[in-house]
């Protein structure tokens, strides 16, 4: 450079400033996603594993979970009975593995039905002015009955069966979903683009399909995972206190209820289903947290 400068002399360079912290390079691709969302990866893996166990329970070295063997009562865990046997000589390992089925069916079933019904009620409440106050009063009333008690009360009316358990817990969960959906609908209705659609005479079903449902989906999915988790716990609690699935069905709550009388001397009968239940609920909750963080950052900030 041989130009002359108005300032005269050679160009003076400013000192170069080093960074006070190093640059970190973010990972990309699947490993990057797992690295950034470890909860969803761990939870998802555990959940898949449990679904596998539920589906293939008969092939995972199990015996008939209901086969009685009075001579082999309350055996401690060993090579022959991995988780020991209960007071009727049934194999706890097999019962616990089959119990995965009940827990997952109830969890997913309640999550599905509560979401669908709650969504419907929430949409009606958000769009039909005169129905809103009635529906919300009813929901307020149902919500002021502790949900386990509500489920217990409903179970007291019917025979114990998996279907009735799903029904009872679903009823107890519906108010929460309805309120969530209604909240989303009411806030979306205030949005200029929805107001514009309403003003330009778009029919309500179209508005719901185009504007409301897509925006409700993310919080609904997150909510559904939490409902799934709490339904699994609720099922176990109901069965544990004798108001859930009939004793013939090996559910974790039932296994624990049966092991209850002996738990001080034979704690393993209670602990194995307890561990499975905790891990299952944990897996669902981790998936829920992970989904919440990546689907709905606004929600993630709040809770």
């Amino acid at each position, binding site marked *: *450079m041989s*130009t002359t*400068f*108005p*300032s*005269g002399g050679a*160009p*003076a*360079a*400013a*000192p*170069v*400033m080093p*960074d*006070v*912290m*190093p*640059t*970190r*390079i*973010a990972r990309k691709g699947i490993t990057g996603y797992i690295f950034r969302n470890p909860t969803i990866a761990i939870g998802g893996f555990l959940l898949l594993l449990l679904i596998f166990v539920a589906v293939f329970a008969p092939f995972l070295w199990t015996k008939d979970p209901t086969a009685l063997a009075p001579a082999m009562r309350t055996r401690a865990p060993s090579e022959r009975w991995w988780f020991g046997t209960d007071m009727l000589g049934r194999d706890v390992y097999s019962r616990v593995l089959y119990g995965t089925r009940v827990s997952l069916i109830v969890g997913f079933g309640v999550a599905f039905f509560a979401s669908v019904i709650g969504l419907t009620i929430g949409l009606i409440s958000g769009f039909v002015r005169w129905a809103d106050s009635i529906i919300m009063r009813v929901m307020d009333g149902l919500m002021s009955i502790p949900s386990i008690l509500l489920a217990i009360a409903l179970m007291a009316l019917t025979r114990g069966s998996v279907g009735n358990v799903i029904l009872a817990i679903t009823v107890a969960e519906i108010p929460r979903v309805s309120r969530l959906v209604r909240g989303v609908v009411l806030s979306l209705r205030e949005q200029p683009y929805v107001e514009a659609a309403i003003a330009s005479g778009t029919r309500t079903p179209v508005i719901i399909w185009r504007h409301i449902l897509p925006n409700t989906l993310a919080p609904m999915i997150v909510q559904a995972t939490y409902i799934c988790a709490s339904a699994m716990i609720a099922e176990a609690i109901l069965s544990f206190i004798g108001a859930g699935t009939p004793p013939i069905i090996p559910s974790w709550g039932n296994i624990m209820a049966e092991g209850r009388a002996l738990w001080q001397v034979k704690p393993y009968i209670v602990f194995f289903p307890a561990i499975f239940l905790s891990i299952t609920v944990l897996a669902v909750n981790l998936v829920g947290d992970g989904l919440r963080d990546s689907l709905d950052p606004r929600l993630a900030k709040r809770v």
Partner: protein
Amino acid sequence: MALLEVDNLQTHFRTPDGGVNRAVDGLSFSVEAGETVAIVGESGCGKSVTSMSILRLIPEPPGKIAGQIRFNGKNLLEMSDREMRAIRGNEISMIFQEPMTSLNPVLSIGNQIGEALVLHQGLSKREAEAKAVEMLTLVGIPAPDKRVKEYPHQLSGGMRQRVMIAIALACNPKLLIADEPTTALDVTIQAQILDLMRDLKHRVGAAIVLITHDLGVVAEVAERVIVMYAGRKVEEAPVGELFNNPKHPYTKGLLGAVPKLGSSLTGESTRLAEIPGLVPSLKNKIQGCVFAGRCPEATELCREINPALELKAPRHQAACHYATKEAVAA
């Protein structure tokens, strides 16, 4: 020795994607006791980060401060938290841009003014409240003995900024940092607050660092001006010198962007001169002059070599290869 000497200050932030945001990169300046220095620049140029860095209010992480900030000769960056707390609100205090949100909504006005007094001067709650009433009178709030028991939501924006000033001045600080103290206020209130600050400055004798993007405010209250661009100082001069004889193209651009009264009548262009382009992202290292991308006079040289700050006239620094140098004693 100057009251405040900022030496090669760097405040960097970790960005969520792992990169580094160089909000302030190698800033040096000093403030004499009782002096009023303005730091001007567009939003995002690092002037607020500078003010927060002086009081070490930058959350670390994601931020990190390097360099030296000497107050009365002692480096604030090397102080313990306890020593730093003894300085905040006592020897150096600060007024923020947002009077609406800068006061705690659940604590009474008196409580919030008195807090610094209880902390730094060991006053009892009762004494602090009496002093708070005094401070409210000083900043011109009517019915101070009633207001002292009220909560921020019961006050208007201008009133709240007066309360903020009362909090800042409660312990007679040696240095007051005012970060855009009038930006959020109505024009008439702005003038009142500026008058108040000028008046109090004479009474209290504190040095002021005024952070602003409003050149009108600068002309009114500052003695010396520092122009910042993209985290660096590009020009510094006494206020009259800067307005009459700007050296850096950026400063010229800023002055050109100020509307002049009656300009539409004199037949001049009614459009304000604007500086084309955007402030460069501070997430990337900038080669060459930081202003080169927007500078009308930039050359190849500007894009390659970052100009050093040089004395271009007495007490007048600028960082531009092409700024004319006047007779300066070397």
